[in-house]
């Protein structure tokens, strides 16, 4: 089987991005970098999602002039993952924004961005 | 005389031992009250004269009493060293019914074995009073008769019979165990004859004895009669 086609490449890229994001989250000490890691992670997921719905040699799920409405089912890629990814992106955006707000607040509390400085609660 | 019996006249508080002074305590219910140890802890009854019973019976009983002389193991002076040999094979007082007892409650004879210091007198009186009647006093040596070589001592008594009724004096300084055995035999005779009524005499002339005792014992800090 041919692994060097677009959906494989994109899905592998997506997963690599996820792992990269996780690696950043787990190893970076700076909270902002952690948030960036989270963004990478999220983006990776979005890429994976889009790859899932991809069908080779088909077009976007918009029924304009290029698509025959009657035979749309055989001409377009799956609209559902795209719809889902839209939602997921927005959610990721919301989460990231919120995280950044937290970072701001944390920095204000301790004037520090090192994650290990925020471990007062433990055990 | 009567006021002699009354302890209060005796500036006793100076001599009264700490534990015999009055004290206030708090009960478990929180109420405070006073304790007078001499009254609360000691019986203040005076001794009574106990007359002998029916003559025949009494004669028999007296014989038994004479043959069973239980001696209080209490040595007051140098003469106490003469008592232990009595129990040895050489003298063996046990054959005469003489046995040593450890407690005055069970003894019938107290041996005043020589000089009697005033502070010992107090203990002797207490022990004597704790013996049950009929009880007998055997006095050893000249010190108990007239003070002996301590006749002018500031601290010993001269005549024992001022302080308690003596049944038999054994003379000598000191009398040897043989003399002591003889003294026991004398005592037996007295008992059998019904003349050894020292306990009753003590009860009868209690006030006089007490007066004498209190006269010489300055720090009198015990009840009048030690039951």
């Amino acid at each position, binding site marked *: *089987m041919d692994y060097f*086609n677009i*959906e*494989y490449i994109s*899905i*592998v890229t997506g*997963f690599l991005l*996820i*792992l990269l994001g*996780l*690696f950043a989250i*787990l*190893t970076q000490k700076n909270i902002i970098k952690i948030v960036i890691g989270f963004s990478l992670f999220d983006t990776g997921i979005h890429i994976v999602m889009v790859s*899932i*719905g*991809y*069908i*080779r040699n088909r077009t*976007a*799920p*918009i*029924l*304009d002039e290029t698509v025959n*409405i009657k035979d*749309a*089912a*055989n001409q*377009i*890629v*799956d*609209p*559902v993952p*795209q*719809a*889902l990814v*839209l*939602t997921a*992106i*927005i*959610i990721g*955006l*919301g*989460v990231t*924004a*919120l995280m*950044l*707000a*937290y970072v*701001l*607040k944390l920095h204000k509390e301790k004037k520090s961005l090192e994650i290990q400085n925020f471990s007062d609660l433990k055990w | 005389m009567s006021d002699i019996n009354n302890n209060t006249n005796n500036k006793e508080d100076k001599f009264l031992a700490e534990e015999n002074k009055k004290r206030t305590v708090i009960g478990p219910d929180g109420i405070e009250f006073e304790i007078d140890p001499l009254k609360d802890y000691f019986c203040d009854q005076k001794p009574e004269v106990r007359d002998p019973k029916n003559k025949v019976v009494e004669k028999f009983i007296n014989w038994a009493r004479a043959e069973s002389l239980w001696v209080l193991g209490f040595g007051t002076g140098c003469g106490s060293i003469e008592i232990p040999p009595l129990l040895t094979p050489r003298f063996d007082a046990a054959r005469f019914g003489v046995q040593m007892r450890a407690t005055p409650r069970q003894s019938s004879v107290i041996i005043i074995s020589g000089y009697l210091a005033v502070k010992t007198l107090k203990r002797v009186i207490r022990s004597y009073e704790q013996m049950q009647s009929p009880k007998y006093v055997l006095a050893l040596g000249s010190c108990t008769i007239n003070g002996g070589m301590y006749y002018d001592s500031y601290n010993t008594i001269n005549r024992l019979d001022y302080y308690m009724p003596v049944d038999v004096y054994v003379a000598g300084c000191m009398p040897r165990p043989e003399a002591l055995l003889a003294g026991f035999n004398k005592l037996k005779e007295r008992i059998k004859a019904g003349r050894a009524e020292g306990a009753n005499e003590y009860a009868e002339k209690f006030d006089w004895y007490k007066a004498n005792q209190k006269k010489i014992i300055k720090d009198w800090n015990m009840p009048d009669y030690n039951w």
Partner: protein
Amino acid sequence: MLKKGLILIILIAFAAIFLSLISSFNGNTELSDLGSYYAKNAPSEVGAANLVTAVVVTYRGLDTLGEVVILFLAAAIIGLLLKLSKDEKDENSRMENVRATSEILQTATKILVPVIFLFGAYIFINGHLTPGGGFQGGAVIASGLVLLFMANPNMKINHRLISFIESISGLSFVFIGILGILLAGGFLDNKIFELGTFGKLLSAGAIPLIYIFIGLKVGSELSSIVGTLNETQKEK
């Protein structure tokens, strides 16, 4: 270093999960049942040319409502979180002597911002026909605002106004949803209006309306977020 190594090992092990997913992934040759249903029926049922829009706004309208709520929440929480005490506000206002931004930026802003806003509006109005939609349009509008902030760091946005727009759009969205129950098949059904001619601007029932509200809402929410973040962090 040791820890990093450990993390690496764990992640490599973790990658095994993904590997097994990839190995079972064979690509697609056909649409899924769901996809082909949408491809076949969406034009007649929803009337939106953009199938993604049809799915997002109508078929999975509740998801969209959830998304909107999430943004709304994010904005509200950031507001809650970064609400400045009075002292801080005063302090911030005293530090306004920041260096002015460059002339180029300011000029470009003046020219570009209206265009950006217009573009945003276009995107969400045409959401049911062309790629794009309320979210995308809202984001474009918000990017215009970011540009404004960059040009003029001391700019204050009118939070009350933004909040009003945000809420009224949200409320309208919900209201349209309820109308769906009353007038059509169910909550968020777009057939409260005529579906119209397929492929025209005024078609697809309530979708354009909804997308307008979503666009407004997203735009205002993102603006609000950016604005709040901007106000809070004033470096000396």
